[in-house]
C-alpha cells in the first residue's frame, strides 16, 4: 500500500489539480471540463486566466479525443489508445500535460507542425491562424487544423513536447502547455 502513498506524494509535489489516464470519450470530456470549471471557480481564479485555462484545456482534450480515431493510431492496440491528462497549478502558472501513443511514421509531420508554431511570434501566430481559418479545409470529424496554433496563441508560451520511441512502430507523444497567471 505504500505505493499509493508514493503516487499521492508525486501528485502533491507536482501540484496536480486533476489527473486522468484512460480512454478519452465525449462524456469524459464533458465531466473533466465540469470538474475543472468548478475547481477554477473554487480557487477564485481571475476570469481572464480562468478562461484561458479552460479554452486551452478544451483544445488539449479534443486533440486527444480526435487522435484516437485518426490515421496515427490505426495499428495501435486498444490498450494503447488510452491517454494521460494532468492539470497542475503552481504559484505562477497552470500546466496542462497530455500524453498519448501514436504511430511512429506520423511523428515527423506532427513535429514539423509544432516546430513551425514554436518558431512564430505573437503577430505571426495571429496571421497564420487567420490564414488556416480562412483557407483551411475542415475534416469530416470537425477538426480545423487550428488546435496547436490556438493553444500557442492563447498561452503565449512555446509548446513543450517530447517523442519517446516505445516500440518499433509506436511512439509516446507528450505535450506540456504552460499558462502564466495574468495580472
Amino acid at each position, binding site marked *: 500500500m505504500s505505493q499509493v502513498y508514493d503516487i499521492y506524494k508525486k501528485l502533491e509535489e507536482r501540484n496536480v489539480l486533476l489527473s486522468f489516464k484512460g480512454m478519452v470519450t465525449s462524456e469524459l470530456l464533458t465531466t473533466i471540463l465540469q470538474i475543472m470549471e468548478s475547481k477554477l471557480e473554487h480557487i477564485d481564479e481571475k476570469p481572464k486566466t480562468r478562461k484561458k485555462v479552460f*479554452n486551452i484545456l478544451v483544445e488539449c482534450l479534443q486533440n486527444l479525443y480526435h487522435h484516437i480515431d485518426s490515421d496515427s493510431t490505426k495499428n495501435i492496440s486498444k490498450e494503447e489508445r488510452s491517454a494521460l491528462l494532468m492539470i497542475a497549478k503552481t504559484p505562477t502558472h497552470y500546466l496542462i500535460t497530455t500524453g498519448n501513443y501514436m504511430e511512429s511514421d506520423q511523428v515527423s509531420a506532427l513535429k514539423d507542425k509544432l516546430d513551425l508554431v514554436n518558431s512564430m511570434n505573437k503577430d505571426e501566430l495571429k496571421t497564420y491562424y487567420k490564414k488556416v481559418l480562412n483557407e483551411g479545409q475542415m475534416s469530416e470529424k470537425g477538426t480545423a487544423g487550428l488546435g496547436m496554433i490556438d493553444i500557442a496563441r492563447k498561452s503565449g508560451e512555446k509548446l513543450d513536447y517530447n517523442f519517446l520511441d516505445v516500440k518499433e512502430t509506436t511512439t509516446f507523444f507528450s505535450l506540456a502547455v504552460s499558462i502564466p497567471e495574468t495580472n
Partner: protein
Amino acid sequence: MENLNLDGSAKTPTVKFDAANGVLELKGRSIPENSIEFYKPLNDWIDAYATGPQPNTIVDIKLEYFNTSSSKCILDLFKQLEKLNSGNTEVKINWYFEEDDEDMEEAGEDYQAIIDLPFKMIEVEEI
C-alpha cells in the same frame, strides 16, 4: 418562416434566430467535438431566411467560449451572411466580449479582418 430556437447545453450555445425581427443570436459556449453537425441546421435556416429577409439583419454573437472546431463553422456562417448582405438586407454583426477577455476580443477582430461586414465590438461585464 419559423424561428430557430435551441436551448444551450454544456457544449453548445443557445440559438435564437428570429425571422420576423431579423435578429440572430448565438449565446453561451460552443465547444462540441464536432461542430459541423451542430451548425448545419443554422446554415439551413439562414438559407431559408435568405429567400425573404428583413431589410436589416442583426447578428448578436455572445459567446463565452468557443473551440477551434466551432471557429471554422462560425466563419462559414459569417460567409453565408456576407453573401446575404449583398441582397435585400443589410447585415450587421455585434460581437460581445466580457471585460478583460482579450482573447475573445481578438477573435472578433480576426473575423472582422476576414469578413466584409460591419462589426461592432461590444464590451460587457458579463455575457
